[in-house]
């Protein structure tokens, strides 16, 4: 009996061993799959987005179409959109400069001087908010009213008194009649300011940059960046320079939204550029978010812009006061800027509203050169030479 019992136990173990081997032989394997539906592919083609880039949020009230994009492109470059027909959007947003203009601050169509630097328009479709310091402009369609219709300062100058005149220009043009009809097939009305804004927003949403040397590196080409640029990337994401705290992700800014973003935030930061009379104030002409909220803690708060194509969009900061990338890095290395004399005198490093992330750091010339080299790798020549984004009147 004992032998039978031992034999049965042995059989049990042999069986168990056999199942073990089977289990190991049939053990699962790892895999990853990215599911893309046909709608995503079509949207990606319309928006000039390479595959590694996410899709931006597009408001339901203004769905994208090829016809709207085409209309928006013409409007973007057409000086007929300004009241006195001297300026277009392109007047302050040049494709060769990643849709910035190279000026410290621009001048409007009637000669009004603006106080803020023209932002580059690379990937603006991914902004969480729009303009330099407005926490209420959450869609491009909100922001576009400002350069077109504002009267202080005047940019394109399509104020109430000039609105009808400007709309009529497009209403009587056969080419624009056709483009508006194709872009808004369900509308019986003619040209309206809303249609102009919706079309412009659709075109601006296609201004997407994602084929820089850095993007190629991200996609697996380890030779796409030089050793110096790789060092700069490491410094950018490191705990000394800490650039990544405000300029991170695929669009190099925390002010970011794509169509899948659920935890939306609207970050604004004071980076210690000014500190008038040590009160935390910025120049009265532009105190950032404070100008909207009137809260002292919002003095000097501005939206962190994307760093894509940053080498093309000098000068820098909201007022264009820093001329080069080196001057920007040196500003952050100091922990702010000391203005020793003049109307803006004050030590920005001691600004009470300055972000706690900005503590300054020691940087060698070699490290600064490496960081600049990395930032230059964000330049996308396919973007600035893309004919789909260029002036259609010159074709």
């Amino acid at each position, binding site marked *: 009996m004992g032998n039978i019992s031992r034999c049965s*136990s042995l059989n049990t173990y042999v069986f168990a061993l056999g199942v*073990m081997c089977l289990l*190991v032989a049939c053990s699962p394997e790892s895999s990853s799959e*990215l599911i893309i539906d046909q709608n995503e592919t079509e949207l990606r083609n319309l928006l000039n987005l390479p595959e590694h880039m996410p899709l931006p949020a597009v408001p339901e009230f203004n769905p994208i179409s090829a016809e709207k994009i085409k209309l928006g492109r013409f409007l973007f470059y057409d000086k007929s959109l300004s009241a006195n027909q001297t300026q277009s959007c392109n007047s302050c947003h040049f494709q060769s400069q990643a849709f910035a203009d190279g000026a410290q601050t621009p001048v409007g169509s009637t000669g009004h001087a603006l106080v803020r630097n023209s932002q580059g328009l690379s990937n603006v479709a991914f902004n969480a908010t729009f303009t330099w310091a407005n926490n209420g402009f959450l869609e491009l369609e909100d922001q576009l009213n400002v350069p077109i219709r504002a009267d202080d300062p005047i940019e394109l100058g399509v104020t109430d008194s000039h609105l009808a005149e400007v709309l009529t220009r497009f209403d009587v043009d056969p080419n624009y009649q056709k483009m508006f009809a194709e872009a808004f097939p369900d509308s019986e009305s003619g040209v309206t300011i809303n249609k102009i804004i919706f079309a412009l927003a659709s075109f601006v949403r296609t201004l997407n940059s994602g084929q820089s040397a850095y993007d190629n590196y991200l996609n697996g080409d380890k030779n796409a960046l030089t050793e110096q640029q790789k060092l700069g990337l*490491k410094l950018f994401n*490191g705990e000394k320079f800490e650039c990544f705290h405000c300029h991170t992700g695929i669009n190099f800014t*925390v002010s970011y939204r794509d169509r899948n973003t659920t935890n939306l935030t609207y970050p604004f930061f004071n980076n210690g550029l000014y500190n008038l009379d040590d009160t935390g104030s910025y120049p009265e002409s532009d105190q950032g978010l404070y100008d909207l909220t009137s809260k002292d803690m919002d003095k000097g708060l501005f939206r962190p812009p994307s760093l894509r194509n940053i080498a093309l969009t000098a000068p820098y900061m909201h007022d264009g006061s820093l001329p080069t990338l080196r001057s920007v890095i040196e500003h952050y290395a100091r922990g702010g800027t000391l203005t020793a004399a003049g109307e803006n005198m004050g030590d920005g490093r001691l600004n009470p509203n300055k972000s706690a992330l900005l503590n300054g750091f020691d940087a060698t010339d070699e490290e600064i050169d490496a960081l600049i080299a990395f930032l230059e790798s964000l330049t996308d020549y396919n973007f600035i030479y893309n004919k789909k984004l260029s002036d259609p009147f010159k074709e």
Partner: protein
Amino acid sequence: MRIFIISTGLVTSLVHAHAPSSAHVSTEITAAAAFTWRSGESLSRDEYWLPEGFLLGGEAMPYEKGATLDDFQLLASKNLNDAYFVRGKLSGHNHSGENTLEVENLWLGKSWQRQNQIWLIEVGKMATEVTETANFHSSDDDFSQAHLLSDFFFGRHFDDTGLRVTWQQGDSTVGIEVFSGENYPASRGEYSQSIYFKKNTYLLGAQLDLGLFAMISQAERRADERYSAHNHNNAEQQPDQVFFTGDSKIWGSYVALYYQINHWQFGLGGEMILLDNSGQVNQTTQSANIDSEQTGIRLTGKLGYHAHEVLFDYQKVAIENKFSKTSSSFLTSANLFNQGFEPERVRMSWLYHLNEHILLRSEWSREALTAAMAKQNHIGFGLRWRYTLYSAH
């Protein structure tokens, strides 16, 4: 396709008494500790353990080179006139020269017996009872190093505040647990619930333990706390956190066979665990919808003679991820792309029971913990000590 296999292998560390954990609690204080010297480490202190495609958490840290105090436990239980009991555990470990000590468990319980059934209710901060794999401690286990299944599915230890109700009749036990979500894979306040069945019986002369369990956890922006709460790493740069929001469903089964004849002991054990994650992962800016199936297997064999034991152990974990509403760049930056890498470990150990308190261990292991790592061999020597400081009996 769901795989649900009851393996017929064994897990040696499961060959313990599997009565409801606290049905008959005596008053006693026990101390246990484990020390190990290791010839090498899987990852240097400049690196983070981020196996491609997996979302780890809890205390699943790689082991270090050199001598360490793996684990220390002081366990106490008090039977209060058989009306109820209190149990607690103080535990500590050494990591990168830092010592930590914490109250790992503290809970109360009461049991009732009705005819041949035992009912038990426990409440407090306690370990889950779904499987021993969820509660790895070097001073409790035959091996000094945590099992991959412990790390990948439970964050090495599952300790949480909650309630457990257990029913036992004969050799069968059923338990239901509800926890507050303090432990991976849940997140605080989001809760986890589990149910388990255990059977401890004899089959053809061999002791047989088997178990089945299921656990559901919810998480809201669950971070990888290994590298956010406290960081033992020397790397210059923290990885960008990947947060998970969603549900995690775990199913598992284990079987252990143990046979002793004269001075010979034979053991075979196996365990298989499946984890379904469904939800969203996001970093500071970008996100992705995720639907993943993670599978882990562990197979162990033991041969013993007198005070000597030789063990063999094999573990492997695999992940099948499906992502949507995202881009390839995000998946790459978040380290979520896995195209065929399975963390794997095989090890052998010789144990010698010096006396009833001290176990000496000699171990060899070969493992690959990330896709970038070549398989590495390590050896380790150590001891496990256990002593009852006080007992009311």
